[in-house]
């Protein structure tokens, strides 16, 4: 309905188009504008490619770091549960007492099994592995203590539960020192945590940069089309109508930038897979990098599109309003 003239229907209602057709036309016009924006990008290939590249590469860096972190977590997750408690016994402890202790501990509900490493056995092993073989022969007696390796049941392998168990074991009369082998893992987790925060901060800064870059690109687009926007405003186009092509441009920047980032990440991982395989071989493990798949890929593309849209929205909101016919 016209605001000024009662009975003068405007636009679609005047020619008697049904609501369903109007809805269809709404989508048709959206699709048309989306394709027009894509065509516009194609016509200015060089400039568009640069913007898309900036966006793509800005997303590549945090994505790659994220993948490396995820893989680190995946590897260390396997180690998390393997906690073992090492008990060094007083050197004066008699072998009978040791066996008694071993049996006693074996009955504890928290403990899966207890393994005894005899001090002479430990000495032999040490001689073999340390390379101090000859020097050790000169020792009068064996300085190594007897050791009990305690494996907790699966319920008590978490760092806290294992810690509690360790405290309990330390109270045993024969035990001199008790050590939990997950302390270094906790440190690793700590380091990974810092790395994670660093990745988040880097990602945040890069994303902010992307929004600003897209915003500025769209601003230039808007200024380039100043005359066209003025004419459209003169013949009664709403701000929403005028800004739609620019929002679609932002959308396409985001989507294409995201796809570029995906390809770049895949190439990077492929490039690195050789050297990673070599390292894995040194540790005698089978290991392959998990790439971007499923949810992570969708998240990355979604984020990229979001950044493109956010940049164009900020720009459009500010600048289209400012262009008014005078």
């Amino acid at each position, binding site marked *: 309905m016209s605001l*000024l003239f009662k009975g*003068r229907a*405007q636009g679609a209602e005047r020619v008697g188009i049904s609501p369903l057709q109007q809805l269809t036309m709404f989508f048709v*016009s959206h699709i048309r504008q989306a394709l027009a924006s894509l065509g516009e990008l194609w016509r200015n290939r060089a400039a568009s490619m640069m913007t898309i590249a900036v966006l793509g590469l800005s997303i590549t860096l945090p994505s790659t770091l994220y993948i490396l972190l995820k893989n680190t977590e995946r590897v260390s997750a396997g180690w998390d549960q393997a906690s073992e408690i090492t008990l060094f016994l007083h050197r004066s402890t008699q072998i009978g007492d040791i066996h008694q202790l071993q049996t006693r501990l074996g009955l504890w509900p928290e403990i899966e099994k207890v393994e005894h490493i005899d001090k002479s056995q430990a000495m032999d092993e040490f001689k073999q592995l340390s390379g101090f073989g000859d020097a050790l022969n000169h020792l009068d007696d064996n300085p190594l203590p007897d050791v009990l390796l305690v494996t907790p049941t699966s319920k008590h392998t978490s760092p806290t539960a294992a810690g509690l168990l360790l405290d309990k074991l330390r109270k045993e009369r024969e035990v001199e020192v008790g050590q939990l082998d997950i302390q270094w893992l906790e440190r690793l987790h700590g380091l990974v945590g810092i790395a994670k925060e660093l990745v988040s901060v880097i990602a945040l800064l890069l994303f902010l940069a992307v929004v600003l870059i897209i915003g500025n690109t769209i601003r230039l687009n808007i200024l380039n089309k100043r005359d066209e926007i003025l004419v459209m405003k*003169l013949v*009664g186009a*709403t*701000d929403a109508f005028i800004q739609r092509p620019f929002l679609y441009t932002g959308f396409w920047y985001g989507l294409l930038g995201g796809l570029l980032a995906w390809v770049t990440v895949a190439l990077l991982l492929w490039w690195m897979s050789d050297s990673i395989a070599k390292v894995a071989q040194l540790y005698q493990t089978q290991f392959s990098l998990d790439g971007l798949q499923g949810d992570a890929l969708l998240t990355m593309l979604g984020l990229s599109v979001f950044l493109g849209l956010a940049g164009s929205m900020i720009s459009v909101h500010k600048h289209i309003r400012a262009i008014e016919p005078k």
Partner: protein
Amino acid sequence: MIRFEQVSKTYPGGQQALRQVNFHIAPGEMAFLTGHSGAGKSTLLKLISIMERPTVGRVLINGHDLNVIHRRQVPFIRRDIGMIFQSHQLLMDKSVFDNVALPLIIEGHTHKEIAKRVGAVLERVGLADKSRCLPITLSGGEQQRVGIARAVVNKPPLLLADEPTGNLDPKLSLEIIRLFEDFNQAGVAVLIATHDLGLIARMKYRTLTLKKGQMITDGLTEEWPGDDDEPAI
């Protein structure tokens, strides 16, 4: 149709463009608005199309006070007003057809409807064979007719023209004015701002004359005093 009630407009910086202007243009009326450059003609038209807002007073279209129209509603007001400019305001990188179709695309018409109506209106302004041309390849008079076609394609009840014959020779100017007369006879109210006094003299239409922002005459061309500094009334 258009009513000005004690309208004054002062631009930021103190320049007073209009002073207490009162007039009324009836539905279906055709009128000229004249005066020297800087007399306030363009400002007056801008107040009607809400490119500017009055400092004091009210502008009413069809009884609706434009002061209460919100920024967001302005586009819908402009769809009821066909506007024609001296500088044509065409999109130079779009074909004549696309230029004329713009108001219909904005209103969300179907392709078929747009083709039909643009074809009809181009026929009416005598440019049916130029619909695929770019405006840049057309003469000044033809470009102006494209502008007119665009202004009337969605059949607005009101046409505003700001110096529509500014760059045209007398013969072409007359053709353009005849075109406006055609639309006027179809019931459209037309207000033409021009300083082409010779053109006005040949017409028998109501003429509003502005001088330094004040309405000094309002009457038929026969009573019009010419380019005299002294107001006749």
